């Protein structure tokens, strides 16, 4: 089976359109980041999360009002599993007291529907700020590492364009999280540790697709005149189009499976991965390689490629 027979898209000629789309994506993401901000999970904000399971189905509103009256400030949502609710609160005191408060108030108000606490997570503010710092460090280190590695394997221009593409991908997903955060009931799209894991995986994966395109460009570019570059870039991208999309496709397939089956704790992660791979595939064709092309046509030095 073949999804892509011989394609002949002129990616380079229409790159300005792609740039415009990317800018629009990024800008709306950035604006949303400033206006709406991010919906941080307790990992980065501190606070407590409690999963409560009831014996019988229960109205979210009822539990919400019971919690309000008990003085537990926060939000109550469906957890995405049977008869389970997720209570989020910025409560940072003694968890024993919180547990007792929740169970007592539910026990008195809903005596016929017994509730049990399935899991409880409480993160103090100092840990939360530490985690934020480590997350930023990890992302920074990943970008620098990739920049160095691709510089060694290809050339600085290629590496820089690749890192720009990663930035593009991560920022777009982050913008998406900011735009949709808290709006969808079955996935809160909160930025927590698992989303950082997604970002790092996206960073690693985004460059995977990019490298596939680069590799072909490098192979074809050897000993060619700069005037031929546009044709070579285009042909390389067309030739690798199939594999770029199929590799992303198989990974996306497993991410979709995760989204459907792996339960609420993984859902936001799977969503981030899905969006990241999608944008990453797009960016390796429409962002990374065109940037290298533009940069190259502006600089006087011919491309000096290392490796094979």
């Amino acid at each position, binding site marked *: *089976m073949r999804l892509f027979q011989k394609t002949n898209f002129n990616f380079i000629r229409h790159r300005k359109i792609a740039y415009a789309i990317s800018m629009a994506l990024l800008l709306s993401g950035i604006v949303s980041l400033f206006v709406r901000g991010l919906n941080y999970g307790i990992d980065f904000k501190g606070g407590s999360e409690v999963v409560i399971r009831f014996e019988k189905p229960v109205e979210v509103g009822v539990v919400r009002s019971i919690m309000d009256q008990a003085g537990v400030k926060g939000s109550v949502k469906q957890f995405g599993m049977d008869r389970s609710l997720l209570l989020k609160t910025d409560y940072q005191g003694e*968890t024993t007291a919180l547990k007792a408060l929740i169970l007592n108030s539910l026990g008195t108000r809903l005596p016929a529907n017994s509730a049990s606490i399935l899991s409880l997570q409480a993160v103090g503010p100092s*840990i939360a700020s530490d985690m934020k710092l480590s997350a930023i460090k*990890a992302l920074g280190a990943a970008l620098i*590492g990739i920049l160095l590695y691709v510089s060694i394997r290809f050339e600085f221009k290629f590496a820089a364009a690749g890192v720009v593409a990663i930035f593009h991908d991560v920022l777009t997903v982050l913008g998406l999280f900011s735009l949709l955060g808290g709006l969808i009931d079955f996935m809160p799209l909160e930025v927590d540790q698992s989303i950082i894991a997604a970002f790092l995986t996206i960073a690693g994966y985004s460059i995977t697709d990019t*490298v596939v395109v680069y*590799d072909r460009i490098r192979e074809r570019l050897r000993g060619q005149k700069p005037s031929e570059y546009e044709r070579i870039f285009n042909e390389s991208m067309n030739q690798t189009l199939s594999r770029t999309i199929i590799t992303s496709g198989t990974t996306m397939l497993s991410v979709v*499976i*995760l989204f459907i089956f*792996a339960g609420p704790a993984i859902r936001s992660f799977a969503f981030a991965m899905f969006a990241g791979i999608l944008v990453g595939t797009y960016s390796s064709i429409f962002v990374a390689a065109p940037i290298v092309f533009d940069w190259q046509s502006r600089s006087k030095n011919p491309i000096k490629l290392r490796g094979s």
Partner: protein
Amino acid sequence: MKNNTFKLILIALVTLVSLGAIWPTWRDHVLTEKLKSFRSGQDSLKFALDHRTEIEQAKEKSLKLGLDLRGGMHLVMEVDVLDLIEQKAWNKDANFTRIMGNVKSEASRFSGATMVDLLAAQFQKENIRLSRYFYDIRDSDKEIVSRLKKEEQDALTRAREIIRNRIDQYGVAEPVIQTQGSQRLIIELSGVTDEARVRKLLMGTAKLEFRLVKDPKMLLRAIQRVASVPLQAKAVTAPPPADTAAVSVPGTVATVPDTAPANTKRLTDVIGMMENGVVYVPAYARDLVVSVLKRDDVAALLPQDTQLLLAAKPEVTVKGEKYYPVYLVRKTPELTGGVITEARATFSAQDSQPEVLMSMNEEGTSKWARITGANIGKQVAIVLDGGVYSAPVVQSRIPSGNSVINGIGDLDEAKDLEIILKAGALPAPVKILEERTVGPSLGSDYIRAGMFSMIWGFTAVALFMIVYYSKAGIAADMALVLNILIVISVLAGFSAALTLPGIAGIVLTMGMAVDANVLIYERIREELAEGKSLRMAVDAGYSRAFSSILDSHVTTLAAAFLLYVYGVGPIQGFAVTLMIGTGASLFTAIVVTRVLFDLFLDSKFMDEKSFG
């Protein structure tokens, strides 16, 4: 091909080793099922006894599940290094307290820096030498900083050992206790059912002190001095309900009259007195009063070298109202818990209430004999972590070095006290920064979800490869099976726990592992389209796709590695499976499918059309 013999042996070896590593997990599963299948308890017990070593071995070597799948408790605790530093300081004055306050607020802003460095920086800013408060006056700042840092490190190590002791005595299977940075401990306990009790057990500093109780007249005078201290406005925002506010304890003569305006409550409003001279605080106001008494301005009002302490346990009136007696004790303890060598929880012979018997070392015994001898007829308070457990009147000199804590709620608490006293006191207070508890029922839900996604992930990817690449897809799928086998066996072999994010990592790896094959197959298709023979196209496909495969694997590995280094807890599980999976896929995609192709080509199983 001749060099394939080596590769074939290698593949067979890897497969065998993987299967070997997974075998105990399988046996463990089979044995557990078998144990469950017996109808009578006797049969299953007999089976368990007959196969004891086998069961134990399988259990030990089988794949470990992480806390989120098995249920358990993950805690991050912090040793209060500031408290430790304060303990080390002498000559403490107002200036010192102020600087420590600065350090505290700095510490909350810059996490990650060690307290000692922050302290040194603050002192430098104020141009005060550390030696004014620490160690010897002749020491240089640098020496003091390094000594304090050593103290800090020692305190953390000691705290870890003490907490390990406590957990071991409480009895949790395979606890994980690690230090992180200069003041944190990471504790993982699986299968804990009574989290509240464990938390208390871990947090208890168990600072045991024997303190002389001052006579009632002095207590009365002390209470009068602090009576008009306002309770902080902030603390009174939640006034107790009216009915409990007017506690009437039988035998009350008078509560000190309420002279303060209603909105600025004073200490007198929550302290009462009985006709027998017992001063008490009603239960609802306990925390409030404890925090007020801790304030420096309040402590300064009391007579020299004295302190007001509340009882650890409330007394209950006939009406069921709870109140805490207040004691005035000497601030300097006569004896501290360091001298305790042995502790035992038991029931008292007189009233069958739980109590803890303690015996002391030689030094403690002789001191205790002297103290009791000199204070016959007086009360000695037994204070644990700032709460008075009991204050018996000394009847006679005690030469044996024995003492007893009573006034304990139940036997569990007595047992925990025994554990804590035996394990020793923590060098400084600890607090819980992060707590994650997962109950076993949610864990089994996660396992089911994880299994489903693995099965469906594999099915989807494997089917896709066969549909898209026909016979070549079969080779990729076989490689995929081996890949998953390797990931699980490495986890089992190195006793790394499988977590839910770890399962997500495996599912993700399935999608990524075939990427290498996709790159190769697409290249082979291209070479075939150029009219090359099948064998030449396969050769060219493998050699030309290699560089992109290497690059993409290296970058993914790097990202996963960073995630492992900077991530915490379950996320590390994801990073680990991703790393193993990516590494394994280099091997399976490049070596395994290559050998399979050679075999397929030789056996005429494949032809030009086999790449779809």
